[in-house]
């Protein structure tokens, strides 16, 4: 099938990808800077194309609980929002992780805390990679650095969410959400049939046939010994995920004496800084985590062996730097450079920071 090329916003790419990936349902609520996801879905009206349900809910709280219930039926369901809305969704995310359901959430991050700003930020790194809601759980976190990755990661997030029966989150930001780039798009994939779902996901609440016991989707277990066992099983699953699902990219690292560690928009900006630095003869490379959880700790530790110092470049006050230091066991100098509150770092100021803090 011939691939199609389209110019689109990051947010539109999320929506278009969802339709074409055969997603069953999207439940969302408007918030800047991600409203184009819901708008694009409403314009495309996918119920006529694939039968995909799109609903504007009354709140992010309702949205995530709709996602929880849709996932409980074995359906491919998702939502998207931006930071304040994602905070409201933490209840639902915890329940989805607790009930071990697959679901996809997109966070087009804006600056905080509080109502903050509508400009891009990476200040939700802690919230996303360390759990966010109550209880011991993790979100499989994918960090796109381009509109193409916004598109591609929807399908990838669903694959991972269903493989591990755990929510997967695409941690984007206002820049990747709003910027327009070329995207290679796929043909429409058909949605799963009810027969396929009932056969493939024997746990799903789809209506109880006489041939099996009733399926119960819940995160409640009042017997502490049983609840501990549920937690142990979830943690085992996370160990496998940490072993198998790490994704990262290394750019200009072959001869690098210094390393930027950056994801998403920051990684894009660092690539420009690398050009500037190398023009001055400074050998610097980029280590870009694509999965923020599981964090590519082993790979970063390995990459850090041959460098004199690391600068963790983030659009926040210093969050991923903690994982960088843990990964490298503080054996190499690692510092944080960040702009925040909606400010985007300039390639030149990153170079200045590299010279001042690391060299």
């Amino acid at each position, binding site marked *: 099938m011939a691939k199609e090329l389209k110019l689109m916003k990051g947010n539109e790419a999320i929506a278009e990808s969802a339709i074409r990936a055969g997603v069953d349902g999207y439940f969302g609520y408007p918030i800047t800077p991600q409203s184009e996801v819901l708008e694009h879905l409403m314009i495309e009206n996918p119920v006529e194309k694939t039968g995909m349900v799109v609903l504007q809910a009354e709140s992010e*709280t309702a949205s995530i609980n709709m996602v929880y219930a849709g996932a409980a039926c074995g359906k491919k369901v998702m939502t998207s929002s931006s930071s304040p809305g994602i905070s409201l969704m933490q209840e639902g995310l915890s329940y989805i992780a607790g009930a071990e359901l697959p679901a996809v959430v997109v966070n087009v991050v804006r600056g905080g805390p509080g109502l903050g700003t509508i400009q891009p930020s990476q200040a939700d790194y802690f919230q996303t990679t360390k759990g966010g809601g109550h209880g011991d759980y993790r979100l499989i976190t994918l960090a796109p650095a381009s509109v193409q990755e916004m598109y591609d990661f929807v399908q990838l997030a669903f694959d991972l969410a269903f493989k591990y029966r755990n929510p997967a989150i695409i941690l984007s930001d206002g820049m990747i959400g709003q910027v327009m780039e070329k995207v290679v798009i796929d043909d429409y994939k058909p949605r799963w049939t009810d027969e396929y779902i009932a056969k493939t996901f024997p746990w799903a609440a*789809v209506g109880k046939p006489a041939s099996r016991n*009733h399926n119960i989707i819940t995160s409640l277990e009042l017997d502490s010994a049983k609840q501990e066992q549920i937690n142990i099983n979830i943690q085992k699953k996370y160990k496998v995920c940490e072993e198998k699902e790490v994704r990262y990219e290394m750019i200009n690292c072959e001869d690098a004496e210094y390393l930027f560690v950056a994801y998403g928009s920051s990684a894009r900006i660092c690539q420009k800084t690398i050009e500037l630095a190398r023009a001055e003869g400074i050998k610097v490379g980029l280590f870009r985590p694509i999965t923020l959880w599981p964090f590519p700790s082993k790979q970063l530790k390995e990459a850090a062996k041959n460098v004199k110092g690391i600068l963790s470049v983030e659009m926040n006050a210093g969050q991923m730097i903690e994982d960088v230091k843990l990964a490298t066991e503080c054996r190499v100098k690692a510092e944080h450079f960040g702009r925040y509150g909606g400010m985007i770092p300039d390639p030149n100021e990153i170079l200045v920071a590299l010279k001042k803090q690391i060299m």
Partner: protein
Amino acid sequence: MTREEIIKPENLVYRRTPVLTDNIMHYCPGCGHGTIHRLIAEVIEEMGIQDKTIGISPVGCSVLAYNYFDVDFVEAAHGRAPACGTAIKRLNPDKYVFTYQGDGDLAAIGTAETIHACNRGENITMIFVNNAIYGMTGGQMAPTTLLGMKTATCPYGRTVEANGYPLKITELIAQLPGTYYVTRQAVFTPAHVRKCKKAIRQAFENQNLKKGVSFVEVVSNCNSNWKMTATKANQWLEENMLPFYPLGDLKTPEK
């Protein structure tokens, strides 16, 4: 007459519906939940929709309802059952979807989800058990607690000044164009039980029409947290709850 001679199908006058499981219910003796569960289960059996029904349980005393109904069940977060029901029905329009909630769940923490699911006209059945108190957490004030009624969090009695008015959420949602059938029932006498079952049956059958929410409030008791005997609680219900929450249909389908 031997035992075998007595236990024959033709002698059967009553049995537990197979839509209820064998699990022993955790509800207090005298509580209305067991009766209401039975009525719903009997309706599901009589309609022959056990394999097409998905239930949603709340947070509160009936949180474990999924252990008692032999149908597929989803346990919602506190107050979110109508949002869950919305998604399940929209993604599975050929299934029968019902929510089961108490007063704290439906009329306090879940008010937004309740109002909006009703206003969107989701094609689901909502069962609302109103006993004017938070049972599971130990008898705190509910949105439907009557004025003057004593609870753990209004120990000297509910007052307008301190706590505002009891919320007649059923009257409120009956005003919404998205609700198709809204009724208030009770289960404290056999006659009320029979009427309530008819209402629940109607509320389930309405899903075939795709005309919006069918909403059944059941005024019930909480003898444990009302600190009364079961008999006294039913008397109290009749004398105090029913004057404020009068029984009957608030909105009926056009004939």
